[in-house]
């Protein structure tokens, strides 16, 4: 079926938005929507046309548990990485802030696991990459950590970022030899779990440093702004 034919597209978009399509037709059109800008435009126009019908619907404050569940899910605390991420992030900052203290901490936990309530199998920090970025005054700005084979980079903003209006904060991997690699846009405050395009090992194995710049948009391929913060990217294993 040629979905780009405007008349047909218009009819399907209208019925998709109204909601009368059969499950099969609905699934098929949802797939078309993924890759057809024309379908996206037609659908958006129908949502716009019918939006006024939502006005008389009474607002109902949702129970607080919904927001709690949403926060839990959007902070990425999945069963797979949950305890590792929590455990790791709680140790990463002090360990790095004290430099060699990290090594001491690993040794300490290894020797006396009972002090942190760990079973012997969890007595070591998981093999991970860790970065601590500081600004020109040596103030910690951002910590980043990822399991060696993990595909999630957990970042925590330690000092709020204040880019000019409309700009984004971009995290870069600075390889030993080679051009900077854009990792991800990071939030200005708080924490985030960023999905990596490949396991951390593939991205950070030859990356001794990380940096943040402010950029006009998230699609830049090379840094254009000055470095706001930078720091070492180290392996922990």
């Amino acid at each position, binding site marked *: 079926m040629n979905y780009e034919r405007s008349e047909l597209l*218009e*009819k399907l978009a*209208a*019925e998709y*938005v*109204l*909601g*009368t*399509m*059969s*499950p099969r037709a*609905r699934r098929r059109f949802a797939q078309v929507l993924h890759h057809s800008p024309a379908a*996206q*435009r037609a*659908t*958006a126009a129908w*949502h*716009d*046309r*019918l*939006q*006024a*019908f*939502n*006005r*008389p*619907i*009474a*607002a*109902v*404050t*949702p*129970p*607080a*548990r*919904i*927001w709690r*569940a*949403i*926060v839990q*899910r*959007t*902070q990425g605390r999945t069963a797979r990485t949950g305890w590792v991420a929590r455990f790791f992030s709680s140790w990463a900052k002090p360990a790095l802030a004290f430099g060699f203290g990290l090594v001491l901490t690993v040794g300490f936990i290894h020797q006396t696991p009972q002090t942190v309530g760990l079973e012997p199998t969890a007595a070591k920090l998981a093999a991970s990459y860790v970065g601590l970025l500081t600004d020109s005054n040596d103030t910690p700005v951002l910590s980043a950590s990822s399991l060696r084979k993990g595909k999630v980079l957990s970042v925590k903003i330690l000092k709020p970022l204040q880019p000019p209006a409309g700009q*984004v*904060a971009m995290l870069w991997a600075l390889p030993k030899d080679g051009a900077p690699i854009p990792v991800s*846009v*990071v*939030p*200005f*405050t*708080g*924490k*985030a779990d*960023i999905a990596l395009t490949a396991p951390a090992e593939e991205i950070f194995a030859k990356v001794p440093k990380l940096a943040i710049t402010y950029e006009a948009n*998230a699609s830049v391929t090379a840094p254009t702004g000055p470095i706001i913060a930078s720091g070492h990217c180290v392996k922990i294993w």
Partner: protein
Amino acid sequence: MATSPQQNEHLVRLLGRVGQRDQSAFSELYSLTSPHLFGVALRILNRQDRAEEVLQEAYVNVWNQAGSYAAGLSAPMTWLTSVVRNKALDWLRHVKLADESTVVMVNEDGEDYLPQIADERADPQELFAQATEGLRLRHCMGTLEAAQRQSLALAYYDGLSHSELAEHLQAPLGTVKAWVRRGLEKLKKCLESNPTPVKN
């Protein structure tokens, strides 16, 4: 939920920040928009538990997709509502609802939700009439035949599919499909001939 241009701009800014993984912006966006969106989910699903799940799924989607929200394509409330409606319709189409009369709906204070919803679940035609009050839609809806109006109202507010409409209206499937199609066509034609935009 009607939004002023200022509120619209604020929501666009919040969505931009949510796209950059700003939790505080996400929290504010939720506070501002969730009562209306929960109302939309409850209206179409008519079940507290399903509406809660749909609302949760919708906001997780918003968190993940806010970066791709195009302000030029649709107003923020329209986009957010579309996310909720799509999730709700997916629920209706893919999940066979159990016997609704056996479902006990209890809110956080332990109160039964059912009577409240049952009372508030107005007739779709009445909602249609309210939606069109004072809007150019009133005129345009007036150009539709009664059967076309009723079909659109039942589909939009109660989430009925073509075949469910046919069953509900006791009419052949082909006839119902034609009512819906012609109703939508007439509505579009009429709205396009009127230059006043409906902002929401």
